[in-house]
Every structure is written in C-alpha cells, then in structure tokens.
C-alpha cells in the first residue's frame, strides 16, 4: 500500500539533508584528514608521521631509564687513579698488568679517539665493567675547528652524542686537548682561541640538545711552562661548559720537576677565571734516577690539593719509557704511593 505521490515529496528534504551532511562531512574531512591532520594523528599515537612500520616491527615502549647522574663523580671524596695503557680498554690485559704492578686497580682509563671514529661503546663498557670510568681524548685531526663550529660536522657529533646517550654510562671527554700548544692541528699555529671555544661550545650544545648528559666535560690544556706567552683565559669556554680542568704535564728529564713548578703556574692562571676542579689528565715521569722521587712528588702533590680530583698515568713506552715498571724502584715507589686509601675507588658504586 504505497503513496507514490507522497513518497516523492517526502524524499526531497531527506535528500537535501543528506547532501548537506555529506558536504559538511567532506569539508570537515578536509581538515581532519588533511596531511597535517594525519601527521597529528600519527604523532598522537607515538609514531613518526609518514613512517610506515613493517608488520613485524613493534614500537615496544622501552622502560624509561633515567640518564646516569654524573654529579657524584665530579668531586668525589677520594682521588681518581687513572691510566692510559696500550690497547686498553679494548683489551684489558695492559690494565690488569698495570694494576698488578701498581698494586691497585685504576678507576679511570683514558684512551684516544680520532675525529670521525664512532663512539667506542664497547670500550667504555669494558672500562665500566672493570670498575673504571672511561676518559676519551677526542682529537680533531680531520676537521678544522672552524668547520666544527660552523656546523659542518653536526651529523657526526649528533650521532656520537646519541650513542653516548644510548649507552647511558658516564664518560669523561676532553675535546682538542693541549690546545694551547703548537704541535697539534688544532693548536695555536693553525687555529685561534675563539675558534677553539666556538667549536668546544658547539659540540657541548649539540650533546645537550641530544640529551647526552652522561658526559663529564674536560677542558685540557698543556701546562703553560713550554709556551708561557699563550694565555689560557681566551681558550676558556665558560663554567657551564666544563666540569674538570685536565692539566697535562710530564716529569721530564729536563724542565720543572716538582708539583709546584710543573703544575703550579698553570693552576694559578686557571684559578683566576674558574673554580672548577683539576685532574692531572696525562702525566708520567721519564725513566731515570729521579723517577721514584717524581712519582712520590706527583702523588703527594695531588693528595695535598683538595681541588685536584686525581691523576692519569700515561703508561706507554713511547719516545721514552714512561711506564711505572721502567725500573724496580719506580714500581716500588708507585705501589707505595698508590696504596694510600685516598687513591682509587669504585666508580660504579657512586
């Protein structure tokens, strides 16, 4: 029983209503389902817009692990007993040998990393597993300070920083050490102090931007004695960029041979512009009759100064025999000095 006439009349408003709704839906759809809208939706689901994951891949949310808080490592009550040894910390045999001869396990292991190398996560992990903090001397051989400061190396720096963040272990990094010397490509002959600070700050900023807060930043000048005319202050990046002032100075056969004369002038100069703690970032004594006395002087000088957090022994036979076992008396002296309870502690328990 139909009413053809009436149906046709009743349909018209329905069609009109349907058409209006459809049009408005399309209009609204233009914004909600626009590219921007899709991006917003994907982001809200925690995905990267446009990134289509393969079915096997899952976005399993990793349990948030807070970044390692390096603050307890910055000014420990005891001193660091560090070492730079052949092949360490890729292989720990040299370190183990050093610990055996020195009578104490080192708790800081320094090694050198060339510009362009990836962050050596395995080595840092090795050192940490051993109970030592890794200390990387990052040497910009292949990139000029100017290029680094201008952002040309950002990709590399960022990926390095991301690796640091990912590993989430504390690490001390000294960029462009001995910048006040003339012998390195980033030294006084090929770059200016302004270029050095700009590059240093730029790297630091990129690390901050990436959230790589596990780094203990070391600003590491050579002792000023060989080039007294190079002032350190222009090379200083600022208190918020540096955690340790890593002074490098060796007890050589010639030149200053006491703690006060070797490090004193540098420390005095640095104290004029910052109160950051020192670390003797590289040291050793040249083999010779004076060596046991030098070792004693080094340890005692370090122990005496509260603002020096430790020392790193350069245990190489390079140019001359810097190793502690260059002679039995040296080894004996080192054992005695390192036995002091103020030297060495387990960095992993801080």
């Amino acid at each position, binding site marked *: 029983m139909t009413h053809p006439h009436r149906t046709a009349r009743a349909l018209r408003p329905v069609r009109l209503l349907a058409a209006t*709704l459809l049009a408005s*839906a399309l209009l*609204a759809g233009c914004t909600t389902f626009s590219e921007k809208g899709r991006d917003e939706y994907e982001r809200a689901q925690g995905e990267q817009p446009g990134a289509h994951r393969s079915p096997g891949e899952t976005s399993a949310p990793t349990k948030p692990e807070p970044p390692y808080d390096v603050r307890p490592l910055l000014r420990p009550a005891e001193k660091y007993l560090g070492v730079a040894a052949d092949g360490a910390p890729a292989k720990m045999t040299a370190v183990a040998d050093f610990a055996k001869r020195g009578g104490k396990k080192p708790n800081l292991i320094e090694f050198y990393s060339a510009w362009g190398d990836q962050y050596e996560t395995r080595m840092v992990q090795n050192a940490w597993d051993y109970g030592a903090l890794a200390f990387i001397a990052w040497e910009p051989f292949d990139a000029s300070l100017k290029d680094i400061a201008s952002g040309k190396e950002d990709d590399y720096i960022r990926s390095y920083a991301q690796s640091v963040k990912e590993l989430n272990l504390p690490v001390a990094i000294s960029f462009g050490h001995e910048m006040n010397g003339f012998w390195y490509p980033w030294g006084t002959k090929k770059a200016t102090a302004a270029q050095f600070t700009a590059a240093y700050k730029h790297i630091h900023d990129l690390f901050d931007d990436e959230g790589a807060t596990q780094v203990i930043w070391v600003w590491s000048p050579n002792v000023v004695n060989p080039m007294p005319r190079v002032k350190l202050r222009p090379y200083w990046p600022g208190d918020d960029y540096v955690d340790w002032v890593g002074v490098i100075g060796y007890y050589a056969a010639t030149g200053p041979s006491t703690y006060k004369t070797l490090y004193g002038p540098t420390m005095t100069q640095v104290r004029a512009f910052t109160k950051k703690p020192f670390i003797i970032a590289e040291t050793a004594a040249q083999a010779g009759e004076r060596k046991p006395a030098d070792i004693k002087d080094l340890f005692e000088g370090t122990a005496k100064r509260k603002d020096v957090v430790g020392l790193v022994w350069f245990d190489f036979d390079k140019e001359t025999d810097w190793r502690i076992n260059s002679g039995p008396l040296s080894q004996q002296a080192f054992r005695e000095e390192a036995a002091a309870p103020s030297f060495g502690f387990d960095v992993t328990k801080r």
Partner: protein
Amino acid sequence: MTDRHTPVWADDPGLRGAPHDPSYGPGEGQGRRVQWPGAQSQDQSWSYEQQQYVHQAHPAAQQGEVTDTGSWRFDGHTSSYTDQLTYDTFAPYDPYATYTATEPAPAPAPVSPEPEPERPGYVLPPVQESSWAVDTGRSRLLGRLVLLCVLLIQAGLSLRLRGTAFEDEALYVLAGHYEIGNILHGTPVPGDFEGYFSGYPKLYPVLAAMVDSVAGLAGVRVVSLVFMLGATSLLYGMTRRMFDVRAAIGAAALFSVIQSTVFLGNFATFDAAAIFLLALSAWIVVRTGRAPIVAVVLAAPPAVLAFATKYAAGLYLPTLVVLAVLTAYRHRGVRALARGVLFGGAMGALLGAGYLFAGSLGGISQTTTDRAKGADTAAQLLQHSAQWGGLMFLTAVGGSLAYAIRPHMGEMPWLEQVGPGRFRRIALGVLLTGTALLAPAYQIHLHTEVSLFKHVGFGLLFAGPMAGLGISRLVGPHFRHPQLGIMLYVLTLVFGMVQSQQNYSFPDSREMTAVLRPMVDRKGTYLAEEHEVPAYYLRDVTGYAQWQGTFGMDYTDKKGKRYSGPEAYAAAVKDAKFDVIVLRGTVTPDVDTAVTNALRGNPHYRLAAVTRFTTSKGDGAYRIWVKR
C-alpha cells in the same frame, strides 16, 4: 494496540449470505467498523485513492452495472479466491470479473452540530510511534539493547586513548588530596585553589582524590567514563521521552562518538561530572513533564551541582529553565510558565544557599566570566567548532526543521496524531539546537580557543534530542533509508575517533618524573613548566608548595630589588634559587626564554637529562637542570 485482523471466509457471514459486507472493503481496518463513506477523514482519503486506482485500471467499469455496494463482481468462472480481500485485490486483473459501481450516496442529511465535547479531566500524552506500531515494551527492550551496544562502543573509543596525566588532571587530583586533608583535619591547602579553579575545589577534586587513593589516575579516569556513559544513557532516556525510541537511539549514538564525549570519557577533570549532572537535570525536567509542576524542583539540585562542579555549566542553566517550560506537556500557557519559574526559583534559592555557604569565589570570574582574552580569531574558532561538532549540529538543525514541518513521520496514518503545536515544536528545536552554539559564541566573545573542543560537547548534549530526531527522519518512515543513518553514524564515529586521538595527546611525563624522583626531597624548591604534573606524580616525596610554575612569579633578589614576570624567573635562576629546573618549551615561551638565557653561563646548574616526547602538535622534550 490495534486489533486489526483479516477475516477469513469461514467466519465471514457476508460472503456466504449477503452479497457483500461493506465493512471489509478497502478503507476498513483496525476493527473500527465504520460505514463507507467513513466519518473519519483519514480513512476517507485512504479509500479514495484506492478507488481511484481501480477506476484508472478499468475505465470501462464506469459504465458497468450499478449495484448498491459498488465492487467487483465475481461471475462464477473462477473460484480460487478464498476471501473478499484477495478477491478485491485480483479482480481488476481477472477477465471474468466485472465491476459494479455504487449508486451515488445520498446527500448526507443535515446534522445538527455535535455538542462541544466536555474538556476531559486528563489528557493522555501523545503516543509515540515507532515503525508500524506505537512504542511497546518490546521496542523499548530492543532500544535498550542497542543503547548497550552504543555504550560499549563509546567505552571502547574512550579507553583506547592513553597518556600520562595532563596538567589539569594532575592539578585537580592533587588539589583534591589537600582538600580532603582540609576537610578532615583542617590542614591549610597550599594555594588559592578557589581563586583560580574553574569549578568548586571541594566537589570534583575531592571525589577524584578519593578514587585516586584507591585506584590511581586510571581509576579517576574510569569515573569520568562512567559519567559520560551516564550522560549518554540519560540523553537516550530524555529523547525517548520527548520523541521516540528511534530518535533516542540516534541521539545516543551520535553523542557517544563525537570527539568531546570520547575525550572526556578518559579525562579526569570537572567536565565529565558537569556534563553528567546537566544531563541528569535535563532528564528530570523532561521526565517530570507530565507530573505536577512541583516535581520539576527535583531537577534543580543536579543543575546547581553541575554549575558548582564546573562554573561554565552555568551557561546551560537558562536552557534548562526554558526546557522546563516547553516540556510541560500537561500544562499550557501560564502553568507551563509557572513550571519554568518554579524551576528557576529553586535553582536561584540553591545558588543563594551555596553562596552563603561557600562565599565569593574568585575562580568564577578568573576562569569563566572574565577569562583573559586571547588572540584567536572568530573564523578559526568557527572552523574548529564546525570540525568538532558540525556534523551532529547539522543533523540537529535538520531534525529541528523536520520537526517544525511535521510532528510525526506519518507511519501510522490511522492514528490520530496529537503532537505538540507548531510553536512549541519550533521553540523546542530553536532552544535545543541553539544551545549548541552557546559555547562557541561565548568563546568567540572571549577570543580564546582554550578548552573549546571540550565545551562543544556540553552544547551537543542539548542538541542531542534534535540530532536524534534528525537521524530518525533521515532514515525515514519504516526504515526506508537505513543506509543514510548508518553513514551518518559511521562518519561521526570516524571523525570522533580521529579527532579525540589528535586532541588527547599530552607529553609523556613518565621518563621525566623517573629522572626527577631521585633528585627531589621535602626541602627543595623546584621550578617546572606545567609543575602540576611532576607535583602530582611525586606527591609522595614532595609537597605541592615546593613546586613553582612558569605562569607568573614575583621575586626579590638579595639586594632587595623586586622583579616580576620573566625577569623574576631570570633573577631567581641567576641566584640559584631552584634546586631543579624543568622546562618543556612551549607552554610559556617568554619565561622559557628568560630561564634558558639565565642558565647560559650559569655556574650553578648542569643539564641532567633531556627526555623526549611526541604529541600530535610535534616533538618536544623536557629539559631538566640540576644544581651541580
């Protein structure tokens, strides 16, 4: 219920004896044995059309035999017709049948006008139609089953949203814990909550904190979901009472999937509770429409409670009052007005009592009436409002228009349709649909888009019945175009799903709070952008007063110089006043810049962590500085 039935040969004396019983001819039905031509106008038109059709099919019949009944006559060649109805249906196509026309009916004798019927003591409310029958217990049961499905879908859509506490949620729940302490032990609350909350801090926050102590934030959000499910159910009940089951299902279905409903169903703020209380009040208003007018007073407490829960709900109290007038089914004119006045008076009395009890509330002006004006343009606000609620609003407009034109779809033309008059229909449509425009209009006046995506939901609750009617009219009588209704529902659902996901996107603070936890104690002072979030998650180890937000601060430095605004933050950071600083970078850009600059070259602080998050607006990161 009709007792129509088709008589069969056996029990029809007319077919065996008399040539025809006129009562079984076309035009008869539902057991009302009315002589043709009937006295009922509806029946008359119906039969007339039928008759006309037959005449067109057999024009020759017009010069056929004339009998006193006027019908098709069976000439005996065929005998397979079992009853008169079948006969009448197939006879026009039967070559052996001939048509007999009726004699012209005698002119009706002039009858004296019937005496004016006495005014009945009680007028039955209009009967709701649903398909071929009035709403029965069965259709109600079916409607409730569909409502259950609607609610399940709504719950699913809400629960799929995930995230850590939003700033407001954190603040309200945390404040609730302090308010409980204040109520039970009189401990002072750490902050002038009454001065800047957008609802009374001793209502929802207290409930939220109680649930939080037992079930955590997820539990508080589930309470919001229960509120929103309740609101949908009340909308269903209200619409069924006003119109019919189909409109009710449409209203509930549309309301349950718009983004504001989905969003608020998993959001621990005042909004869900306020919407529920408004819905409850509206439902009581409609439900007591046929009761004595005093009953409407029952709707006043939830309405006032809704206002106290969230001051912005006050915008909808006038709507409720007018609704009370328009839904006074039994009463017309002055008595209907009296119903509204009674309701308004009851609300006024309760508000007055509340004012005496709670005192002046600075939060009302700060957050609602005198909110800081923003810089959002009207066009932008309108565009976004349309995007968030336009579809449902347009459906309500369509429903209002259709309702204004006809009160019923005419599925049961034999029923005498007594609906509300045209004025009442138009007024109802304008009131309910227009209410949906209140929030956008008010926020356009304030030039701010803050929370608008939530507030559109308040208006759409009221537009719900009209939207339900709209979708029921779109589907048409006898479910003629179910695809249109389904399309509309699915479209609304897709929009609601996508938009709620886009809006429900807060920074993930889990990592940030995990980093902060070992850094904070009961003594420190902490600066944080959106400080409510860490203050909430770290409430077991810190107090709310230790946290400083970035919305404004005064600071006097050691030399006695006073600062305010971003300079105050910069000076305080330079003086290392804060033990921890957490910046997000987008909420208060001016203060962020000032603090970041003060941190540059600052020897007191060290960056401790950068925790990244992704929201629909883009990537961001919490940057956490600590004292060295």
